[in-house]
């Protein structure tokens, strides 16, 4: 493997290296040094993240099974930022006594999934894609069941693994049909041979269902809420941001490059499911009391909005999706960060528990508010820009009705986001969450999120850079 090849695949390889280093460390490190594993992982992963930003060659490896381009690099970078934030946020939780034995395990599993995601983003062949997607899913199931002592965690794990296995089955069945009708699994060749006959459409629909499962699009979303609620919070945030983001990226790439022959079909499909997703998720979110579950439904509805970027099949759409995922990383991790901090401190996860939070923990409340506003698309935080660009992308292709449905849905979503704001600022509580000071990792992660929320919006460079690397059909 030449240096060139290494550079093309550097992010994956570096991550593999990190995983290996951590495995070694797990074996050789002394008991008292174990508590530094977290810091060590953070440092290592930040190096990986930073490395991703250096300019690097594009190209393909393994006979076209692996493709790296500017677009995939920036997608990976966005995800890496998110993963880094999750890793930082996890530190406090991992310091708990019951987790002390499993710290490096946690990081190994987490980074393994990241490797899977990177491979699936860079896939040029359905086999690579399949391996990537499974690598990105199976460890997460283990992570979801990480809290061995909690019923809910185990339940989340089983629900995730079974559902994802089922969905993989469906997806594979779709792939097998595609293979049967085209005789190849290379993206580039499939796209040439793909027509819009019924069998292929069926194959596409099955494939799409499998992907929709990962992104948690209605009606393939039902696992989401339960798994999110049951998993440890950091895993929930990982699932809601990183897994989803990676799946969206892959979907976009595949739709834009492979299924170009049936654009009309997949546009209609996405039209239907995005309306369903936004509406149903919002309707469910209204009633939620558990914040994790609440954010789960919120993230489902966000997926619905994201599909607006997909539907146009245009360059702007891809740019706005990448941008939106970046914003979404900051906003959702900001919100989850606050939930994590409070949960770590007090074990409380319900909305009622947040009553009067502003009076005891004003900073956390403000961060939460900004994050929620960003999710709702309220200026001046970046979510506003992100949503605007998504809608612009859909409108560019004339999907005005869909945009209308989406914006009406944002009102519903604003309603439930405001419920949280109301709880924190307006409601009174007899037993508010105690005033506390978060530890450094939490503050660092939240600080990055807030900075990201503000900067990503106003610094147009970021969007313009993404735009330059995007492509349409």
């Amino acid at each position, binding site marked *: 493997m030449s240096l060139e090849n290494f550079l093309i695949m550097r992010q994956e390889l570096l991550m593999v290296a990190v995983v290996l280093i951590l495995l070694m460390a797990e074996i050789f490190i002394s008991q008292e040094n174990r508590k530094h594993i977290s810091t060590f992982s953070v440092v290592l992963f930040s190096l990986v993240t930073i490395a991703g930003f250096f300019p690097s060659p594009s190209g393909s490896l393994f006979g076209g099974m692996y493709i790296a381009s500017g677009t995939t690099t920036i997608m990976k970078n966005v995800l890496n930022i998110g993963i880094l934030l999750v890793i930082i946020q996890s530190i406090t939780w991992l310091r708990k006594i019951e987790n002390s034995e499993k710290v490096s395990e946690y990081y190994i599993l987490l980074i393994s999934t990241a490797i899977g995601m990177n491979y699936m983003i860079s896939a040029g062949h359905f086999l690579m894609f399949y391996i990537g997607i499974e690598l990105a899913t199976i460890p997460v199931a283990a992570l979801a069941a990480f809290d061995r002592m909690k019923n809910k965690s185990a339940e989340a794990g089983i629900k995730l693994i079974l*559902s994802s296995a089922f969905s993989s089955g469906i997806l594979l069945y779709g792939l097998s049909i595609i293979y049967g009708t085209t005789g190849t699994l290379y993206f580039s060749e499939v796209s040439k041979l793909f027509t819009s006959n019924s069998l292929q*459409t069926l194959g596409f629909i099955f494939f799409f269902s499998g992907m929709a499962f990962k992104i948690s699009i*209605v009606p393939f979303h039902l696992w989401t809420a*339960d798994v999110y609620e049951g998993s440890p919070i950091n895993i929930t945030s990982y699932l809601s941001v990183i897994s989803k983001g990676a799946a969206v990226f892959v979907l976009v790439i595949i739709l834009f490059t492979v299924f170009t022959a049936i654009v009309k079909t997949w546009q*209609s499909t996405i039209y239907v499911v995005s309306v369903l997703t936004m509406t149903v998720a919002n309707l469910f979110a*209204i009633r939620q009391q558990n914040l994790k579950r609440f954010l789960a439904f919120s993230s489902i509805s966000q997926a619905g909005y994201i599909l607006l970027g997909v539907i146009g099949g245009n360059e702007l759409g891809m740019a706005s999706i990448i941008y939106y995922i970046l914003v979404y990383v900051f906003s959702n991790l900001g919100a989850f960060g606050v939930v994590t901090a409070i949960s770590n401190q007090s074990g409380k996860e319900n909305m009622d528990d947040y009553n009067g939070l502003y009076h005891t923990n004003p900073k956390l409340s403000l961060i939460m508010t900004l994050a929620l506003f960003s999710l709702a698309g309220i200026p001046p935080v970046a979510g506003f820009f992100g949503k605007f660009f998504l809608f612009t992308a859909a409108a560019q292709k004339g999907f005005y009705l869909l945009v209308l449905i989406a914006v009406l849905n944002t009102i519903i979503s604003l309603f439930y986001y405001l419920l949280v704001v109301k709880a924190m600022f307006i409601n009174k509580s007899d037993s508010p969450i105690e005033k506390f000071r978060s530890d450094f990792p939490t503050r660092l992660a939240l600080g990055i999120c807030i900075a990201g929320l503000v900067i990503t919006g106003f610094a147009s460079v970021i969007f313009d850079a993404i735009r330059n690397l995007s492509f349409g059909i």
Partner: protein
Amino acid sequence: MTNFGYTIWIPLLPFLMFLLLGLAGNKLKAKLSGLLGTAGLAVITILSYFTAYKYFFGGENAEEGFQKIQAFNTVWLNLTDKLHIDLGILLDPISVMMLVVITTVSLMVHIYSLGYMKGEKGFERFFAFLSLFSFSMLGLVVATNIFQMYIFWELVGVSSFLLIGFYYTKPSAVRASKKAFIVTRFADLGFLIGILILSFNTKTFDFITLTDPSGPAFSQSTSAAFMGLSVMTWSMIFIFMGGVGKSAMFPFHVWLPDAMEGPTPVSALIHAATMVVAGVYLVARMFPIFSLTAPVALHVVAYVGAFSSLFAAIIACTQTDIKRVLAYSTMSQIGYMMLALGVSGYGGHEGLGYMASMFHLFTHAMFKALLFLGAGAIIHAVHSNDMTDMGGLRKYLPITHMTFLIACLTIAGIPPLSGFFSKDEILAAALHSNKLLFAVEYLVAGLTAFYMFRLYFSIFWGKDTHYHHTPHEAPFTMTIPLMILAVGSIVTGFIPFNELVTSDGKPFESELELMVAIPSVLVALFGIGFAYLLYFKTNGLPDKVAGFFKYGYKWAYNKFYIDEVYIFVTKQVIFRYISTPIAWFDRHVVDATMNLIASTTQNVSFRIRDFQSGQIQKYAFVFITGAVMLAILFIYFLN
């Protein structure tokens, strides 16, 4: 012609006085502010007289008659390219005449109020409001354009509102002021609509342009029509509606009697002499248009005037509150003026009615102010408004008595007092135009004499009432204005109006028509005699007469139940049948729809929760169903 620029101070000075007294009034001593206000008014009275002298006798008018002079004009607000609201001063015979009337009466009232309002709480406020009123009224009469007139029209309305409600802790005064404002406001709506229609068709507000017989108003006369009447007719009728409201003509008269809740000097100034004749002035101001392009509207003016004068005169015969009697009498007299305008033609002797109307306006201002101020002096002495509480006051109030008598004789039309001359001209004009109206006015003349002397006899003669406090004559500040106005009532009849104030500015010959004058005096004397019989001494006759008319009396006593109609319309129709349903509709339909959307959302949200059953197999079922449905949809339907 240009050296009338100083007239700008005539309206401006009272305005400054208003600002001074209004903003700093409570810092000044009460007496000082009263004096300041009065002094300011004295200055403009002099200015007005000077202007009148200069205008009428300055020799500037040549053979072509009195010109309209725009002494000052400035754009206040630009509306369209052609329409702009100006503020300015227009001098022509009627505006100059009005200046004299207003400043004279206003000055008298100011002086009178120094005594009458002495010691009242809010003395300086009173004078501030008076100044505001003077400003508005002067601004109204000198208006160069109809919109300026409307502006000041509204301002006099509000000053009237403020002054009627001067005793703001008294609920009846509050009610009265509210009523006055709203009723006139409704009429003003008509005025405004009239202005809109007029300006839309003529593209100008300017009086000089409007009333120019070769101007745009006249070329428009037959252009468009609506319901059989030309637009100009409609606009004139609407504009006249404003006049009806302000001049308390039927059916918008209801506010005037109630307005007597205000302090008596206010009634004298606003509700007798000046503001209420604004409607007449308005018609006079627009007279060429009325006369030449909208004769139908002019007929409306005549009939409304005639009906109101009769209507009011009948009611006046039955009322016992002296100020209300005077109020109805005012209404009746204004009806006269309206009628006179309504029957008048344009130019030369044809314009007799116009001249007569202005003449009567002038004399009426004098004697009606006198009557009100006299009534004020009586109320001041007796502390009651009701004539049944009075009687035999001539002994206690000699000056008031004499001046009151003069005023009564004047209004009754006894020669050689001024009322005789002006009323005679009106009757003559009516005779030449419309016999029916003429007959009505004869009747009203008799009724007028009757109710005025009913008032006079019941107050100053009649029973010897026992008073708690011996009534005493008012102070000089009050009696001097009475005497001045009495003189005015006597002499103003000799002013040659036919040479000064005519419809086209040119003088014309007019002489006393004995055929009209003698019977009218006889009718008046008959009325006086009848009143003498009934009220000179206490006897049972009035009740018998009342019994004779029975229902008629009852209806008249209750003012023909017009108030009740109004209350029905406002309380029942507007409040109960329009506003309450609208408010209900807003809350329970419009708002409820919005809330329904929200609650439906919540409801649906609750209904669909079973989808999320927690059963992984059900999830998978939905999953596979969804996939299959999508497949079916796209393979069989949308492919």
